[in-house]
């Protein structure tokens, strides 16, 4: 019976999405609150594009916008992609070209040449259009969720997605996935660019803020870390730089992003609260470790392999509480940084 209720609830949610998408002008607040608790697979690609600010809320402008933006992206390719071997840009391209085949070594789809070339173009175009930061290792990971979600629209059975052969898809479809991934990644990066500019001030600030937050919400944990000379930078740099993507399975990142995209500045501000609830979730385990090396090893290999949407939902609920507690007092967190 319980299962039936869940199925009914999901069907009802899906209906609400479909209704919303058909409205001449989507109420973004309504869409955000609907998406916050997770988006059904079948409507996720469209929902993400709207939440990203890539697709307009107005229904009759959507098709035209897509066409224009996709053409614009392939215009960039035509205009800039040949510059990748010029002296000014060769190093940027070389680094991207070396990094891409090293991504997600355990997911077969990312070993395909075709996929790697798509990622190279997306990242190269983004990098040379954003010289203030350029390409930084880690940014490549951030393309993955968009790519996988937008691809899922064209794959019959999602389970096979990680193994599917992209050569079986027509080029027109691949182009759509590539252009949409480019624009949505760009929108995301616009919100966190200070993570990747010189000296990475955004990350420094967030690592400090995380420290301040933990001091307030879990003093024994903070004391434990300090007593053992563990510094927040040592474990949370990667959390900030890669938005926790290296710490949880890809399916969980996708669920997490449903909520990040639904929050205003989700990838910057709300992410901090998620990191705080994430470390707090493991507080007992960390405090069980009795030396520096044990703590570090644990924090670096957190047991999240088996995590499902449910675990992410719990994490997000905790993060939401923190946001509620501290949002009115942001100065508390910034004071010491």
């Amino acid at each position, binding site marked *: 019976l319980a299962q039936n209720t869940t199925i009914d609830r999901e069907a009802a949610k899906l209906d609400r999405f479909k209704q919303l998408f058909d409205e001449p002008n989507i109420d973004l607040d309504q869409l955000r609150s609907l998406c916050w608790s997770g988006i059904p697979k079948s409507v996720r690609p469209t929902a993400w594009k709207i939440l990203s600010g890539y697709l307009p809320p107005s229904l009759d402008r959507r098709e035209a916008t897509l066409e224009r933006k996709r053409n614009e992206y392939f215009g960039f390719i035509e205009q800039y992609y040949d510059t990748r071997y010029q002296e000014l840009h060769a190093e940027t391209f070389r680094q991207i070209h070396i990094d891409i085949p090293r991504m997600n070594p355990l997911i077969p789809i990312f070993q395909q040449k075709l996929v790697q070339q798509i990622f190279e173009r997306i990242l190269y175009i983004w990098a040379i259009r954003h010289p203030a930061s350029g390409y930084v*290792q*880690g940014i490549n990971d951030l393309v993955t969720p968009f790519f996988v979600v937008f691809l899922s629209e064209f794959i019959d059975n999602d389970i096979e997605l990680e193994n599917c052969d992209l050569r079986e898809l027509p080029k027109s479809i691949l182009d759509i996935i590539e252009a949409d991934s480019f624009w949505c990644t760009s929108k995301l990066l616009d919100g966190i660019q200070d993570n990747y500019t010189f000296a990475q001030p955004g990350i420094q600030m967030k690592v400090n803020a995380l420290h301040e937050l933990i001091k307030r919400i879990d003093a024994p944990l903070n004391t434990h870390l300090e007593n053992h000379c563990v510094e927040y930078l040592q474990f949370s740099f990667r959390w900030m730089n890669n938005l926790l993507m290296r710490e949880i399975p890809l399916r969980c990142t996708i669920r997490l992003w449903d909520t990040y995209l639904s929050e205003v500045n989700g990838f910057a501000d709300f992410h901090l609260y998620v990191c705080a609830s994430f470390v707090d979730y493991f507080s007992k385990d960390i405090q069980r470790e009795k030396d*520096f090396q044990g703590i570090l090893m644990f924090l670096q290999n957190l047991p999240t392999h088996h995590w499902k949407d449910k675990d992410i939902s719990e994490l997000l609920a905790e993060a939401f509480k923190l946001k509620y507690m501290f949002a009115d007092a942001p100065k508390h967190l910034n004071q010491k940084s």
Partner: protein
Amino acid sequence: MSGKRKPDLKVIIMGDYAVGKTSLVCRYIEDKFIKHEPTIGAAFFLKQWGPYNVAVWDTAGDERYTGLSHFYCRNAGAAILAYDMSNPQTFESLWARFMPLLNSSTEKCLKIVVGTKMDLIPPEERDITLEEGRKLAHELNEGLDISKLACEPYFETSSKDGSHVSEVFECIFQYCLPLSGDQRSKFGLSTSTVDLYEKEPKRATAKKGCC
């Protein structure tokens, strides 16, 4: 051994991106050669050396993270400076980018230069000669008494086939945390090179630092 909250020695690995820093440390610690994602920030590894704990910090090669490297250099007892033998530009980075970094933060830090991917380059196609490698390694250690070092501070390795990988680490550990022949056999470490090491007098205290 118990009751110690911090490792006894901190070793930091630096070098350009994709020269094989993570592969080097994984070959040594896990005796594996697998594909690695680019390291973000730095990754922590732990190695037992006789009665001691050694912290190995494998830093990310991306130039954007250079500021972080300062942080990881603090109190390092030794630094491995890795370059890709099939890419001479990565050798230049060692003095252009990493030498200034080390000079400013760690005077008494032992520096070991390590060429990687030896299996990829036939000897006749090498750009960097053995002499050049050794010369840089000695320059890096100027001001440090390395007469007690049982080996040249320069190695050429292949993480793929394992050549000379453990020698790098054991040379460093033996210098920073000397073990006697007895201790080595007690902890199941090879004693084959022990003759070399026996030349040096035992030193009582190990370097300590917060890792």
